[in-house]
């Protein structure tokens, strides 16, 4: 049956449990199926090539995060995938069809949250959803969708009177009302305060539980880290790295980082041997990159104990996703 015609008694939370009795759930049926496939995508505006050969493959049920600085070609790529924009070259298949020639049946299966769009200011939240529900062959129940984005108590408020974060949630509800298989979320939490962002993440997590495939663009590394199964980083029209939040940019293979300040009265030359060749200095700050953090720490602490240095500010960790991202995009700028 898809997750299309549901009764209003079914809440999103009950979905995983109630799913057992349903045979034909797309979440099961299409697991692993390629939802978006892109080969050699290029897009030029006059002499300027915004997208310079992109390959992507996104499977059913994934949350895929597309990162990149402004002007990297993110929005152009997303708009091509959404069917808003023609492309210069390349093969694109979204839900098995070329979005450039997609028909209404295809549109009914795709939900879109645009980067900048207001909601109809004169209509209430419920009216707005009823309007859009009328466009789809088998929409979700209106009140249930409002509850899913946690706007139940605002259902009868005019959209124009809602806060920015609440309007964005109406946007998400509108993208879901047609019960799509694939949802594009273009910077869905830009301008949110931290608690509103948390709430939005929970809504997006809820979409994952409904079995939706999600294509997310964002500026926020912690958002990608929290939500994404897979991340691709775009810089100057090309994908410079792709991986999970844990493996992106060799994060898992780049080893650990030990940071500390040179103790007072010591010089670089006095540091012990055995810290490894990847030692960087910035003023009196020392950064040691190592694949064997325990060994390096051992050498360092032996040296410090022998000389009575305290190394009060020492820290050990992986590079943050943000550092990886800046490294990846910075190299291309």
């Amino acid at each position, binding site marked *: 049956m898809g997750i299309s015609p549901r009764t209003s008694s079914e809440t999103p939370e009950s979905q995983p449990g109630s799913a057992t009795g349903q045979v034909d759930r797309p979440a099961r049926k299409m697991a692993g199926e390629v939802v978006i496939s892109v080969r050699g995508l290029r897009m030029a505006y006059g002499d300027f090539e915004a997208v310079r050969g992109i390959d992507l493959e996104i499977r059913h049920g994934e949350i895929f995060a597309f990162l990149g600085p402004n002007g990297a070609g993110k929005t152009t790529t997303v708009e091509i995938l959404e069917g808003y924009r023609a492309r210069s070259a390349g093969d694109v298949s979204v839900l098995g069809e070329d979005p450039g020639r997609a028909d*209404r049946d295809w549109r009914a299966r795709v939900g*879109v949250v645009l980067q900048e769009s207001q909601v109809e200011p004169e209509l209430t939240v419920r009216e707005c959803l009823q309007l859009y529900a009328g466009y789809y*062959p088998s929409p979700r129940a209106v009140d249930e969708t409002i509850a899913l984005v946690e706007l139940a108590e605002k259902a009868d408020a*005019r959209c124009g009177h809602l806060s920015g974060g609440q309007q964005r949630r109406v946007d998400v509800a509108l993208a879901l009302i047609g019960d799509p298989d694939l949802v594009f979320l273009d910077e869905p939490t830009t301008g949110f305060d931290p608690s509103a962002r948390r709430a939005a993440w929970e809504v997006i997590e809820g979409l994952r539980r409904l079995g939706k495939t999600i294509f997310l663009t964002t500026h926020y590394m912690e958002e990608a880290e929290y939500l994404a199964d897979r991340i691709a980083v775009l810089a100057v029209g090309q994908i410079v790295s792709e991986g999970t939040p844990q493996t992106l940019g060799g994060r898992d293979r780049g080893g650990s980082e030990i940071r500390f300040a040179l103790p007072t009265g010591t010089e670089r030359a006095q540091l012990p041997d055995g810290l490894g060749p990847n030692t960087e200095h910035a003023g009196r700050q020392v950064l040691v990159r190592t694949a064997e953090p325990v060994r390096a720490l051992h050498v360092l602490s032996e040296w410090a104990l022998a000389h009575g240095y305290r190394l009060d500010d020492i820290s050990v960790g992986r590079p943050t996703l943000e550092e990886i991202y800046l490294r990846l995009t910075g190299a291309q700028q």
Partner: protein
Amino acid sequence: MSATAHAAPRPLGGLVLHQFRYELLAFWRNPQARFFTLALPVIFLVLLSSVFGNDTTRIGGHVVKQSTYYVGHIVALGVISASFVNLMIAITTQRESGILKRRRAAPISAWVLITGRALSSVVISVAIVVLLIVVGRLAYGVSLPGHTLPALAVAVVLGSAAFCALAFGLASFVASADAAQPVTQAVVLPLYFISGIFIPDKNIPGWLIDVADVFPVRHLAKAMFTSFDPATHGVGFSGRDLLVVAGWGVAGLVVALWRFSWVPRSK
């Protein structure tokens, strides 16, 4: 993917009515649209008829009371406000705020959205014309002969549809939501003046009338006034004027097909 995703398609007429209902609701909830579309034409009629209504003017070789003249011409302003002015502003604002772009993402044909929108303008046009006729009748004793009523109804519907089409065509030339109101007024106000809406024909130099005759405003006003003109004895159907208005509507449609944009232009 699932079979039920292709459930019975809704009949197109039902979708147009669905769109129409919500367009009308949104219009009714917007105080600015309500004022400019419904109140302003009545204010113009009351001001002009109160100041000049008892005078007479000559039109087409016979004498007419100016209050009759104004009711017969301000109705055209009402139709143009409800269709052209209202739509120019609404389309530009909705385009720039991304509402059109998101609607385009829905599995619905552009014609449903456009027809639903235009239908709401036609209905609002009918409402403002009825309101103006009632005010003209009660306040100034201007009567509308029953035998010319069908011709007036045709003029209202055809005029409204044509000016909607013009708005769909011209909205693509307005770059931002802020510019929509001033640009639209800059288009219609001079045309109102030279087309005899505010100033009786008799007082406008012939060469200006010739200029006005190129545009659709004067032709719509003439077609509508014919229904109020006591000298009209037949059905009052002004075919040539309506043909010019329709021609402009078709031109607007052609421009719309060529240039209409669902995505913001200012980005």
